């Protein structure tokens, strides 16, 4: 009896796993794979992206005429494929490149996805897109912004988001403009504080390259591991150098740790700049409260003047995700899905080679997407040339004031106050 149990058990296991992995009902949907850090230290970000994925499915799969002219909001499913719906399949990178690679492999070989979207971390995007390139499957990079990603000569890599070279330039342009306007203080020196993975290191390198062009001198750079438990020595070194502008590239947890330590040490630079959108993060705002005000940062998301923005970001999103606030993470994944669906729609097939062809000819207008870009068009490296950042200051009660570009400016820069002045 015992002898028979094992083979029967194994047959059942094999049968169920085959059923689930190949998906019996796979044929009536177009599967799109996504890779995000859904667990681990950066799970919060993954959670935000997941909400974006679900919202993207809602936009593509169901009719929402009230959200026009957002691309594919008025139709249900992919028009050229007789309204076939999309299905997003999740891969968990845990923010590590190796896991991201394995998950990309699993999504392509076992789940049979037609394209991959991801992967938030530049380091994970590097390995996951290598897998996609090897299998000849398009990889749409939604928000990893390391410039090295598009310099690898890949054929199947497309980045909807801007890269850090664009973003850092945007930030320094705005910093120069504001520094010139603020005659009460002198802004000459910059200190770069960055986490030491691919993203932070790239940002630091670009900042050091770009700063002199805008008349700033980089006096020091500190790179630190983002998993650190204390940042006292880092903060002590910043205090010792006392830069005019602190330019910081950190993840959420370490950014909060730094701000708290700066407060304990009663230290403030003359201008506090984040290389990305820290103050947009829900935990950052909840945890730091007033301590997080007055920082300058860049975002790719700002409420733009379009009819669908309020119904989606406030009404629909707030009702379904009360714990979250709509930000660039949802914006970038929605736009990425739209770009992919647009390519499938034009190609009329999910054949990877035809899909790649269609992607290279992408031409989406600015008014059809939720991100405040001028639109989506890829150059020969796969970079969206119409992407740009908006430079924002978090003011009192986290009121976000756009400083740059000038056509989106809606308020004035307030010089960074010392702890005693608050």
């Amino acid at each position, binding site marked *: 009896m015992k002898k028979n149990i094992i083979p029967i058990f194994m047959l059942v296991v094999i049968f169920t796993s085959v059923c689930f992995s190949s998906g019996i009902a796979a044929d009536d949907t177009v599967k799109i794979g996504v890779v995000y850090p859904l667990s681990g230290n950066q799970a919060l970000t993954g*959670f935000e992206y997941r909400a974006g994925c679900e919202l993207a499915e809602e936009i593509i799969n169901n009719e929402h005429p009230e959200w026009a002219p957002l691309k594919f909001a008025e139709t249900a499913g992919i028009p050229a494929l007789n309204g076939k719906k999309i299905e997003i399949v999740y891969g968990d990178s845990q923010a590590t490149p190796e896991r991201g690679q394995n998950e990309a492999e699993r999504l392509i070989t076992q789940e049979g996805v037609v394209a991959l979207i991801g992967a938030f971390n530049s380091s994970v995007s590097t390995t996951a897109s290598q897998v996609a390139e090897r299998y000849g499957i398009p990889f749409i990079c939604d928000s990893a912004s390391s410039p090295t990603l598009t310099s690898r000569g890949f054929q199947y890599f497309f980045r909807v988001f801007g890269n850090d070279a664009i973003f850092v330039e945007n930030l320094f342009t705005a910093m120069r403009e504001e520094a010139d306007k603020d005659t009460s203080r002198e802004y000459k020196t910059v200190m770069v504080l960055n986490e030491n993975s691919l993203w932070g290191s790239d940002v630091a390198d670009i900042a050091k390259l770009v700063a002199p062009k805008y008349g700033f001198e980089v006096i020091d750079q500190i790179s630190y591991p983002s998993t650190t438990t*204390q940042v*006292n020595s880092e903060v002590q070194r910043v205090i010792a150098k006392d830069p005019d502008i602190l330019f910081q590239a950190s993840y959420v947890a370490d950014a909060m740790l730094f701000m708290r330590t700066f407060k*304990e040490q*009663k230290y403030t630079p003359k201008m506090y700049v984040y290389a990305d959108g820290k103050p947009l993060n829900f935990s950052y705002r909840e945890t730091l409260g007033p301590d997080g005000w007055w920082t300058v940062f860049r975002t790719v998301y700002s409420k733009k003047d379009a009819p669908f923005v309020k119904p989606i970001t406030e009404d629909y999103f707030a009702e379904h995700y009360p714990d979250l606030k709509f930000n660039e993470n949802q914006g970038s994944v929605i736009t990425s899905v739209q770009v992919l669906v647009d390519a499938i729609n034009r190609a009329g097939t999910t054949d990877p080679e035809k899909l790649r062809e269609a992607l290279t000819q992408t031409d989406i207008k600015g008014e059809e997407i939720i991100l405040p870009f001028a639109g989506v068009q890829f150059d020969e490296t796969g970079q969206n040339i119409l992407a740009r950042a908006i430079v924002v200051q978090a003011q009192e009660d986290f009121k976000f004031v756009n400083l740059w570009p000038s056509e989106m400016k809606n308020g004035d820069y307030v010089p960074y106050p010392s702890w005693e002045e608050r």
Partner: protein
Amino acid sequence: MGALYALVASGLSLIQGLMNIINFCHGDLVTISMYTSFLLWSVFKMDPLVSIPVCIIVSTLVGIATHKLIISQVLRSPSSFGQMFSTYGLGILIASTLQFVFTPNYRSVLNPFVEGSISIGAINISKPLLFGAVGALLAYGLCYWFIRRTPEGQALQATEQDIDAAKMMGIDTEKMFLLGWTISGFCVGTAGALLTNFYYIHPYVGETFSNISFVVVTLGGYGSFEGSLIAGLIVGVVETISGYVIGPQYKLIPVYLTYLIVLMFRPRGLMGRR
């Protein structure tokens, strides 16, 4: 920070010495304690310092449940892999459950009783860190006194040194195991509540501390309670000083280098037996 490392590590070291088992979910007990403290703060507006006793009780209960349900079962298994993976798996279960219940948002206690810093000349000392260090040392002292000076503590030591001899002397070893988990729960519970004062709370925050705990325990010597204190302080001090002198990006290198050098010349750790 070193004192807190020491407190977390001494709990780990005790269990390791007593049961000869590596508790991979030790860091997750710290996480549980931090969430307990956070929950009490958000529901009853209880300051983390006041919630220390509750945190101790919760982490002790979780520890004892772990022992009764899992450890005492796997101790009977001849394979050491079973022991390792059972606690490792439990750690994943705890972290994932916390993520499910509390979402992966970073939490922290706003306006705690201890906040800000004290200025001595040009040096600003963070009050929560100072409180953390003093609290950790007091808690450590209390455990030390209990283990070294009370009859129960001596029975615990005897069990740790030779379990068979202890049994023959009429010591109820199962009771001693539970006592070990209680002391470990005391250390972890106190450390968790003290950390809540200034550190962010996240389902995977324990991982950061458990990695350092393993270094501390190995450096201090397996099962050595005093070793954990010395090693914890060494790790904290080396980390801070090297961050300042050599550069923050390299601050963990001297920590691991110290660890490797000590192991090369003293494989049993600083205060390890045999």
